[in-house]
């Protein structure tokens, strides 16, 4: 059986052949692994990998499985079984809207309607679990609407500030 898994930004092809009892062999690129496994509970898996004992802990979530191994957290996704729905832009591109990552309270709004903002400019400060977090402008643009004020309670998905994106060419046009 073949899988294409994704961990961080890396794609890992795994070929697994189930053998007698709870044993199997796996191949990742040119690396061979002899496996013996015991499922302890829904969240606990004991593996013998090439004779070496490893305890692994797993939990399913909407993006695949979270795997804890020797104190490290691996978010593993099956590339051939990705969650449906629009793909979220993440990683180096960052978020595309000004929205809190969790339920929070607005502490300060640093922009007004009509302001021109640079990518990465501080737009709104929110507080969650007693920590202040600054939300940044996702791109260069003009603030077309501020939807919140200080001490408003906000949820992930709420767009706190609408920003109309300006591409670099448009700026040149505007300035010329």
């Amino acid at each position, binding site marked *: 059986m073949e899988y294409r898994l994704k961990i961080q930004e890396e794609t890992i092809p795994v070929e697994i052949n189930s053998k007698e009892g709870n044993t199997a062999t796996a191949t990742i690129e040119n690396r061979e692994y002899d496996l013996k496994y015991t499922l302890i509970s829904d969240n606990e898996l004991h593996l013998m990998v090439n004779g070496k004992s490893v305890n692994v802990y797993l*939990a399913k979530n909407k993006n695949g499985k979270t795997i804890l191994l020797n*104190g490290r*957290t691996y978010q593993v996704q099956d590339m051939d079984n990705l969650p449906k729905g629009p793909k979220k832009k993440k990683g180096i591109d960052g978020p595309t809207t000004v929205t809190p*990552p969790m339920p929070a309270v607005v502490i300060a709004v640093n922009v007004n309607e009509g302001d021109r903002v640079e990518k990465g400019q501080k737009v709104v400060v929110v507080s969650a679990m007693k920590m202040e977090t600054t939300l940044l402008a996702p791109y260069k643009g003009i603030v077309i609407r501020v939807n919140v004020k200080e001490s408003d309670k906000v949820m992930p998905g709420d767009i706190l500030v609408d920003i109309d994106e300006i591409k670099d060419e448009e700026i040149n046009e505007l300035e010329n």
Partner: protein
Amino acid sequence: MFKKILIANRGEIALRVINTCKEMGIQTVAVYSDADEKAIHVLSSDEAVWIGSSEPLESYLNIDKIIKAAKDTNSEAIHPGYGFLAENYEFAKRCEKEGIVFIGPGSKAIKDLGDKITSRKLMVKGNVPVTPGLTSTEADVDVMAKEAKRVGYPVLIKATAGGGGKGIRIVNSPEEMAEACASASREALNAFGNGEIYFEKFFTEARHIEFQILADTFGNTIHILERECSIQRRHQKIIEETPASVLTPELREKMGAVAVAAAKAAGYVNAGTVEFLLDAENNFYFLEINTRLQVEHPVTEMITGIDLVRQQLEIAAGNKLSLKQEDIMGRGHSIECRIYAEDPANNFFPSPGKIEFLKEPKGPGIRNDCGAYSGFDVPVDYDPIISKLVVHAQTRAQAIDKMIKALKEYIILGIRTPIDFLLDVLMSEPFSKGDVFTNFIETHFSDWEENLNEKDIAAIAYVVDELCNRKIKADDCVSHTAQTPFNTLGNWRL
């Protein structure tokens, strides 16, 4: 001794107090909000009183409701834990007025020491060295800038009502002064209801060393050694240890004596902590006295064997300190790591939610003061601390090794924790050498990234889990008998 006390707090610290009460045969009353209906302190206490909605002002910060709960349950005393009302002098005063014992110092000491300016003045009077800076609050940014120039940049803006790293800003140059003052003041106003600020000189390479003190109502004051708390992120301690590797026995004795003098200058009673900054030349300056049980108190308990909560209860009940300064001896080395619900790979943003699976590390010399369990929903409304993992070993090097092992065996699924980040700090060379300063994290770990070097094994685990789930459907991966260690561990012998 008290027959029954109320604990005006939640989570791990409420449980910590309940545990000692159980040992002493004291009945405990927990209070809880909507979010904490199934919290561990509610499940572990003898009685529990619902006091309001999840909003802290409606529950854990609501003095009227907590006093009413204490009266309704005939509680003789209130333990405030840390945070919430622990350093609120009005709460202590109200307890005094209502004839309920506040397990902590008197309201006057809390008020004096809670105001950083008053406490600085008290210390100057008591010949305790304080950090250079202002000894009065200042609202005028220009005056702040002028004074900062005199003392020398960088300076640290602080809220007079401060604590827990809130309302603090580092200012490196006059240009940064205005914005730093505004945001520090705003954060302080939000956190403490008081936006007044001042500044102290900021030492870029200094250590944060604090002394635990105990003082009874008979005027006996002793210190219970130091804690090294230099490893901080955003001015919040994350790793604490004792003893501090930098202290010589002479310096320890000197600082301890000053800590006792500081407590006496403030008329302090009960358990408290005197915080110092120690600069590169081993000059030390008074920072503040925390008028409560510290989050990091367990490391002191580990090396001395003293139960600080028991001491607090004895002192509050009017008993004389049974310990003398010469009785206080530390043995071995202890380290604490704070485990928060936060995502180190995402700028340490809080990561609340349901804990799907939790397995605590075990073994000799390992202690985990934990406020959560498998199935518990970590609420968004409160401080994101889950537990404090503490180890005790013969030497510092052994304590580090033990902590690394314990962290690797600490399993929390469902929310993100900084365990991997803490591992990297503990395994780093500067930490193992004891080169710890308050700028340690900024200097060595500001561009920290997840170190995922066992991706193959993680991938294999994913696939094997799929395989097992498929096999379970086909009924041949696991037997139908219960999954006990006896049929899952394979062959073994005694």
